[in-house]
């Protein structure tokens, strides 16, 4: 029974952490940092929180596979849509896991896989959060509980805000030099 609770708890924690990772990733691109803290903190937090999320994700999958009531084999946890029961919802989780694995590997081996590969995988990273969240919503373990609904609602609202923030601003994410060329309406990076 403890395993069951641990599986659900680690799943919810992972969702919260992935929400934070998503926000911190966008914040890095947008050059946001808490005032009074150095700039590198944002990307460092993004990385560290993502590793923490991986830990909780591993716990979540380990307990799900170990739990006899969950009926999730190791294969189903890793290869999307091969579970017998609730193949769709488990599959979404598996897909999210696969992306996370790709992200971790390409990021740790960043210098060896090359910039183009790393970038492509990191663009795909935007899918991790919606896959994970939908997995959580559909898997049905605690779906009705008010506390979980609240957590999910907060995460969704936060991500929606972050996405709007990301899309706002002249070509957010393009380089400074490109925005200068576009007509000198540029947010200058502060000089040291």
């Amino acid at each position, binding site marked *: 029974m403890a395993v069951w609770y641990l599986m659900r708890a680690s799943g919810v924690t992972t969702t919260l952490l992935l929400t934070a990772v998503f926000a911190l990733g966008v914040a890095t691109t947008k050059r946001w940092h808490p005032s009074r803290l150095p700039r590198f903190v944002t990307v460092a937090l993004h990385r560290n929180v993502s590793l923490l999320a991986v830990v909780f994700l591993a716990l979540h999958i380990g307990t799900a596979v170990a739990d006899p009531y969950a009926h999730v084999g190791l294969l189903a946890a890793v290869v999307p849509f091969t579970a017998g029961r609730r193949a769709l919802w488990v599959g979404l989780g598996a897909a999210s896991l696969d992306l996370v694995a790709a992200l971790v590997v390409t990021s740790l081996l960043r210098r060896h896989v090359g910039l183009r590969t790393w970038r492509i995988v990191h663009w795909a990273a935007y899918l991790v959060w919606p896959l994970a969240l939908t997995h959580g919503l559909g898997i049905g373990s605690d779906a009705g509980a008010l506390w979980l609904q609240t957590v999910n609602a907060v995460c969704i609202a936060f991500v929606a805000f972050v996405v709007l923030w990301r899309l706002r601003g002249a070509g957010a994410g393009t380089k400074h*030099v*490109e925005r200068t060329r576009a007509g000198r309406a540029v947010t200058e990076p502060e000089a040291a």
Partner: protein
Amino acid sequence: MSALAERARDAPLVATGTASRLLPRDSREDISWSTHLERYGPLPPLAGHGESLLSEVERSGLTGRGGAGFPTSVKLRAVASRGSAVVVANGTEGEPASAKDAVLMAHNPHLVIDGVLAAAAAVGARKAIIALSRRASTSAAQLTRALAERPGPAQAIRIAGVPDRFVAGEESALVHWLNGGPAKPTFTPPRPFERGVDGRPTLVQNVETLANIGLIARFGADWFRSTGTRSEPGTALVTVRGAVARAGVLETGLGAPVRDLIDRCGGLAAPPQALLMGGYFGSWLPAPVALDVPLSTEGLRQHGASLGARTIVVLGRDACGIAESARITRYLAGESAGQCGPCVFGLPAVADALEIVASAGDGVSAALDRLPRLGAQIAGRGACHHPDGALELVSSALRVFAAEVELHRRGACSAPAAAPLLPTHRERSDWR
């Protein structure tokens, strides 16, 4: 008088004269293949003779005619040693003041093709491209016609029309474009000789350098060295324009004083103030100094100048050197590939400051103080030498026109209404 060089509005003429290996003796000479063979004789068999050709180029002491002056044999060997090579003939001539490559391709396309074939044999390349500016329609037409006349390997040479931008001829930019990207420089290493077109070792060589290889293949190193200087043998094509009677492209052995070239252009058209040596990445020299300088790398180096794009522009006394330099700096700032912060932000700031100085209005002293601070932040910090070249022009202008600068500080200018002299492109194409 030839009107075939598209680069300049005032059609530079092909001057006949002392040295004429590369340019025809008479600009009205026809340039068919049969005439070419009559004049130069056939190319010797190239297949299987790569190594002996490499040695011959090495013995000849041929250096690059594109601006860097690098020993050609070193480049050839670097590519040859890697196998599966590609040859790119660089006829893009992004420098607006230069017309020598256009004139060469228009008047002696067969010799350029000979050079491409010889270089390809020397480095073991089975793919060759002649790259020229999209605007150079006459050169393209002449080369196409010349290629069509020749059987065999020449048929495999492709002609590529490159976007008309100043930096498009930089070797990594050219390779970038040939690989399907924009004509913008890339971060090096790897350099093209290691990994270039299609990821293969690529020899990028100026068309004039290749034409010389076409001659060395026939006549050998000793013949090649029979003119020019010991460190820079052979002939060189030089564009001369500005306050001269007849602007033009001349062929000369290096080492002769600049004055000789001016005389071959019909002499000065007005009392000279200064000469811009080496194109827009070059340096100004005061006229009395410049006219007596031997035109060679060593001769120019002693005055802090270089051959560069082998372009000499004479500025008369009725012009303001600062205003001309400000115009060119603004042009160069606009020709930035827009990839590196120090260039994208720094060059326009330098152009702003120089324009303030040129205006002789308020803020000249502040602008003059700002310039060295800007220069220190820009130099050496781009992926290519574009910002450095522009800074070289600016610093030489401030040095040579120091008296004019003082005048501007006090709110005056010796030639406030002078017409612009140095050319810039008419319209800019995009990067692809």
